[in-house]
């Protein structure tokens, strides 16, 4: 039997979905990122008021003081949808896995000097709990924000932060021989060490905020923007003696992740700031409030890290944050 192939007769009758065509044009095929990311959240005809927020709809624009004409405007410069997100993180974790395995196999943690081990224990491991709070904060954004692009970016950051907390845990398990003692000690520091208390207090304050965009701002811009240069960066560049290079390997995921995540965070803030003077005023007010609190909360840890230039790092981080904020289009001050 001969099969007649008539390609010309099977032209598509449309290029993409109507919601995608309305946003990006009907005349061309859309990318997978476009079809998978925009205008997915229900908009009309909500049947019931939520018992957990009876004044508002299930999805409601009024859960933040930020205003947008188009909440689906938050395009991710990385164009992550689920598949591209997990493929990217799978590559990153593969590199991280090799690093951890290498350090473990050759017993390289034993080459660290006592000071380096102490830095890990006192400055790095308690950050597991900060990452857990960051996980919850981004999960809050994914739950209660408005529009599918924002919810999508936030759930990826949620799972990222859990991943980071778990990588930090593995560093602890490497130095305590899998006993978990270093993690218990780090938790005790997080809960009781005076140097960590101001940061824990501020973290807990972030957990009771209800404006999801303010949470985004406080966590993903201000806290991350100061904590990464102050507390993570010293480990990326190999502190102290020989063994420092191994610490750089073990924290490489965190460094790469931070650069990647910042692209999304900055894009969202830039879009919100460009929307209106009202938004710019709101973002500036949040800057005033959160940056001062964060600098205060981090000051004792900067002191604790004085041998790693903690105070200078914090001052530089503060200036860098101001410059970043100016580029994003609102006032640092």
């Amino acid at each position, binding site marked *: 039997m001969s099969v007649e192939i008539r390609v010309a007769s099977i032209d598509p009758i449309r290029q993409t979905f109507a919601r995608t065509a309305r946003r990006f044009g009907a005349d061309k095929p859309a990318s997978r990122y476009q079809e998978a990311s925009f205008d997915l959240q229900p908009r009309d005809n909500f049947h019931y008021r939520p018992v957990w927020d009876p004044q508002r709809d299930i999805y409601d624009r009024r859960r933040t003081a930020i205003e947008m004409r188009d909440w689906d405007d938050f395009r991710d410069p990385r164009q992550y949808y*689920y*598949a591209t997100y997990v493929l990217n993180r799978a590559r990153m974790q593969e590199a991280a896995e090799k690093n951890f395995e290498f350090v473990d196999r050759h017993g390289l943690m034993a080459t660290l000097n006592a000071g380096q081990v102490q830095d890990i224990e006192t400055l790095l491991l308690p950050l597991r709990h900060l990452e857990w709070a960051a996980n919850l904060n981004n999960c809050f954004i994914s739950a209660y924000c408005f529009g599918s692009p924002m919810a999508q970016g936030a759930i990826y950051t949620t799972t990222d932060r859990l991943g980071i907390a778990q990588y930090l845990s593995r560093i602890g398990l490497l130095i305590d021989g899998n006993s978990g003692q270093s993690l218990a000690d780090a938790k005790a520091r997080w809960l009781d060490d005076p140097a960590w208390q101001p940061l824990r207090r501020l973290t807990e304050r972030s957990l009771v905020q209800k404006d999801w965009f303010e949470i985004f701002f406080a966590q993903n811009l201000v806290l991350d923007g100061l904590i990464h240069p102050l507390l993570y960066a010293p480990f990326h560049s190999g502190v102290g003696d020989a063994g420092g290079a191994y610490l750089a390997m073990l924290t490489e995921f965190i460094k790469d992740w931070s650069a990647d995540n910042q692209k999304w965070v900055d894009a969202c803030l830039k879009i919100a700031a460009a929307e209106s003077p009202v938004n710019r005023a709101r973002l500036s007010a949040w800057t005033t409030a959160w940056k001062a609190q964060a600098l205060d909360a981090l000051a004792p840890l900067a002191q604790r890290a004085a041998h790693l230039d903690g105070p200078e790092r914090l001052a530089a981080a503060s200036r860098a944050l101001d410059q970043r904020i100016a580029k994003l289009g609102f006032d640092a001050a």
Partner: protein
Amino acid sequence: MNTQDTRRPSGKKLSLKEKYAQMTRGLGWDTTYEPMDKVFDQLGLEGIKIHDWDKWEDPFRLTMDAYWKYQAEKERKLYAVLDAFQQNNGHLNISDARYVNTLKLFFTGITPAEYNAHRLFSMLGRQFPGPGAAIACQMQAVDELRHVQTQIHCISQYNKYFNGLHDHTVMNDRLWYLSVPKSFFEDAISSGPFEQIIAISFALEYLLTNLVFMPFMSGAAYNGDMATVTFGFSSQSDEARHMTLGLECIKFVLEQDPGNAAIIQRYLDKWFWRGYKVLGLVSMMLDYMLPKKVMSWKEAWDIYFVQNGGSLFNDLSRYGLRMPKYWEQSVAEAEHLSHQTWNAFYNFSGAAAFHVWLPSDEDMAWLAEKYPNTFDQHYRPRIEHYRKLQAEGKRYYNPSLPMLCQTCQTPLIFTEMDDPTRTSHRQLEHDGDTYHFCSDGCRDIFAGQPDKYVSAWLPAHQILQGNCVEPGAEAAGDPGADALRYFHVVAGQDNLDYEGSPDEANWLRWKGLDKMPPAAAA
């Protein structure tokens, strides 16, 4: 073997469970600068008592690095198939273009529900104070987003060649019959966290998921739809995790406090009936819409609910739980459900985003065999009557708007089980108004939370009140035409009979069947 490290305790090997616990369980802490009940402020809404979140057994001990790795592997394979499907015009390999109508139902009804599940599990991932429970929910939140997106990418190709798939999100928000699944999910998402997880993780994912997934995925396999089969298989391991979460959460809540059982039983009664009513759409899909049939609704209900569900509730009886209220009625109705549902869509096909048709002689022989007690007796005569009218050029349409059940939003299209000539209709007074219901189950659910259900957005009422007009568009004055435009259903393209539709014409042309004599093409 640890030979190097002398200063530190020797590195003992951790089991997967221990490793997961070390890496994860200690992450949370009891807040002291802010009260715990402010940080997790939804836990007191329902009267459920949890004494110790540490008793939560992690249902799947998956660290993030392993999650990324496994899921990326799955995505590589899935997208390789989807790419090939597109390049090779895989949509031409399906059994018949009628099959695509099941995808229309799935894509406008289920895919938006997956989106709501994504957000619902984000809520739970934030609200549960134990990292074990929270992380399980967070992973499901991102999994559900995966399901939305892989379904979109799978359907993307069909949407380029068939009608009715083009505006699934707007249709889900507005189209009358889609208010059945929409209101189901919004009912869940607007509840407190424990009801949310019981409704979706247990009642839907554990108890009823096989009745959604099996019909659509097996239907796809039987009808040559490689794309849907592939995403179905690919999501199976996600679903296995979600089902485990459903079982773990119900056991955890029941074991925490003896007082919880009564609340959970109330949730199960409600969500079983809510879920069962949504499945009416699946019943007609199985019995009437698949060109190549998989199994009947009655068979599916018998295996997946009566047998599997029965043994599950046997298991749960030690906690004081019983089978959900009215389950016997769902069994009695299994002989009628699909026939009455398809009949309603045949009547109202002018306002649907998929096509309908009358069963062929062969189809009717199959239905008679699967439904020996009801089909020839009640439903064949009606179909033959419709056929006769169609042959005379007098195709029957119901010109009215149906009365909708205030709870499940299904039109009142079902009959009493002891008298198939009488419509099942229940009423209840509340605050001086009369509310209408399809069943005792729906009336009871309303009676339990009347203030919630009075606010339901009932499409038929909204059309009659003139609220279904496309924003920014001039009202045409004809409520039917206005409503169609509001639904984003394109008249003459997406709706009405398959025969004579653009879908049919395209299909016959692509398959080279349009040149054949009609008898051979059929």
